[in-house]
């Protein structure tokens, strides 16, 4: 118990009265807030990419171009039949669903409005294909489709997924960059504040030293102080970030969008928010300890 006394005890160095005790928590809170938002963005982006991948895995979309005369329903149907037949001959395929003209039209409606339903529009037909397994081999399906209906294309969504992952990856990278920069700034601030404290209280510290205090005796007073300030700042910052995200989610409530990352706090997000304050406190504490020990090593 004695070993952790520094967590609560004030000690002889009157750090709690320094100006740093007032401004440091706010400064740290601001930095933690930025870091938390960056981390939450990365987590949301990652979740969205994972959701898309889960939805699209083992699924293909086949596009069958419309016949020369888009209004010719018979020709359209014949082309679809040939395509479906080619698909069903493939062992990996377990389900084939031809999207009704109406479904395709409603996909286009946001862009074309009522015109999307016009029969003369040369809209390709879409066939959703489900595979037995995500990585099932398709053999020469692409060629057979081309043979069945020239121009029919097979889309396994890999290109779209790859771009989505690239985007998610860069946002994550950016987030980690922000966290690293903010962390470095926070550490530099704690070092600076600790050095200032050492200078302000130089006389008391030298006295303790001359009386035979180990460097740790002084370091513990500083690290306890830094831990308390770091924890306070971390709590403030994490709370502000939580409120921000919940606020944005509330503003966007009811908005359904496939492309917006889900604005909910998943377990990972909560875990990050809960971990941030103690991590901040710990980093502040270790930084202060290291700074004090390094500085005191210069005393005889």
């Amino acid at each position: 118990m004695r070993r952790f006394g520094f967590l609560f005890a004030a000690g002889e160095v009157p750090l709690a009265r320094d100006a740093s005790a007032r401004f440091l928590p706010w400064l740290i809170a601001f930095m933690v807030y930025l870091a938390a938002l960056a981390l939450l963005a990365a987590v949301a982006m990652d979740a969205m990419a994972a959701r898309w991948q889960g939805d699209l895995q083992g699924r293909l979309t086949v596009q069958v171009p419309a016949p020369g005369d888009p209004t010719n329903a018979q020709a359209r149907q014949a082309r679809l039949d040939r395509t479906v037949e080619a698909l069903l001959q493939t062992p990996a395929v377990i389900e084939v669903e031809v999207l009704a003209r109406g479904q395709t039209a409603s996909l286009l409606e946001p862009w074309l409005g009522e015109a999307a339903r016009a029969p003369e529009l040369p809209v390709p037909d879409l066939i959703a294909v489900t595979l037995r397994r995500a990585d099932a081999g398709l053999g020469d399906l692409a060629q057979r489709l081309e043979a069945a209906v020239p121009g029919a294309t097979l889309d396994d969504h890999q290109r779209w997924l790859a771009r989505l992952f690239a985007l998610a990856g860069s946002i994550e990278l950016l987030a980690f960059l922000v966290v690293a920069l903010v962390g470095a700034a926070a550490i530099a601030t704690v070092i600076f504040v600790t050095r200032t404290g050492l200078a302000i209280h130089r006389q008391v510290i030298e006295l303790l030293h001359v009386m035979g205090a180990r460097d740790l005796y002084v370091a513990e007073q500083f690290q306890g102080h830094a831990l308390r300030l770091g924890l306070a700042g971390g709590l403030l910052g994490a709370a502000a970030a939580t409120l921000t995200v919940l606020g944005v989610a509330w503003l966007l409530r009811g908005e359904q969008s496939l492309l917006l990352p889900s604005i909910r706090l998943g377990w990972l997000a909560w875990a990050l928010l809960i971990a941030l304050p103690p991590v901040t406190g710990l980093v502040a504490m270790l930084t202060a300890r290291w700074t004090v020990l390094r500085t005191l090593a210069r005393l005889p």
Partner: protein
Amino acid sequence: MIRLEEVSLRYGEGPQVLRRVGCHLEPGSFHYLLGASGAGKSSLLKLLYLAQRPSDGRVSLFGRDVARLTRRDRALMRRRIGVVFQDFRLIAHLSAFENVALPLRIAGEPEHRVRSQVSELLSWVGLKEAMEALPPTLSGGQQQRVAIARAVIGRPSLLLADEPTGNVDDRIATRLLYLFRELNRTGTTILLATHNEALAARMPQPRLRLVEGKLKEEPADTPPAEPAAPIPTEATGAGAR
């Protein structure tokens, strides 16, 4: 207990404060350290309480060369040395009680022992009523007694006192001298720096005299310099090595 060999001290590019000084003080001894203002008494004590490294030469305490101690052992050695600083160095925001308690806290004494020992000693030096007072609210003499109490609370083997009677009247000065003698009788080695020849004459003990950076030993029975006279130009009975 204390051995200086060829010790020199110079602050940066300043003048040489100590010039190849040597001396040996036995355990249990009681010496005055005399010398004019600026002679280097405080500087010599600083070497002995390990707040300053000599520019040259060897300082040994408790039979060990201090330059060769580990950092940890130096800290432990400092705990065996009580220091009364010329400027007291009381911590202004801590009560007299907390100031005196410092060495015990540093040594990790349990709280109940700290309470009883500090109260007892403060009563003994006549500061029972001032225990909770902050040093700036105490008189110079009271502060000095707090400083002395702090120096002796840890029962040091070596007590270094720098002008410990500078701020008190003759009556209290004599009382403090008796306190030091009592401590000395219980085994504490004492080195008391002062420029007050009259004080040293009141209770004769062997003396070390600093003159122009050199240290000379004088036995206790050396006739004292005239109390009111200016500092002698020539040290009598020089026993320097």
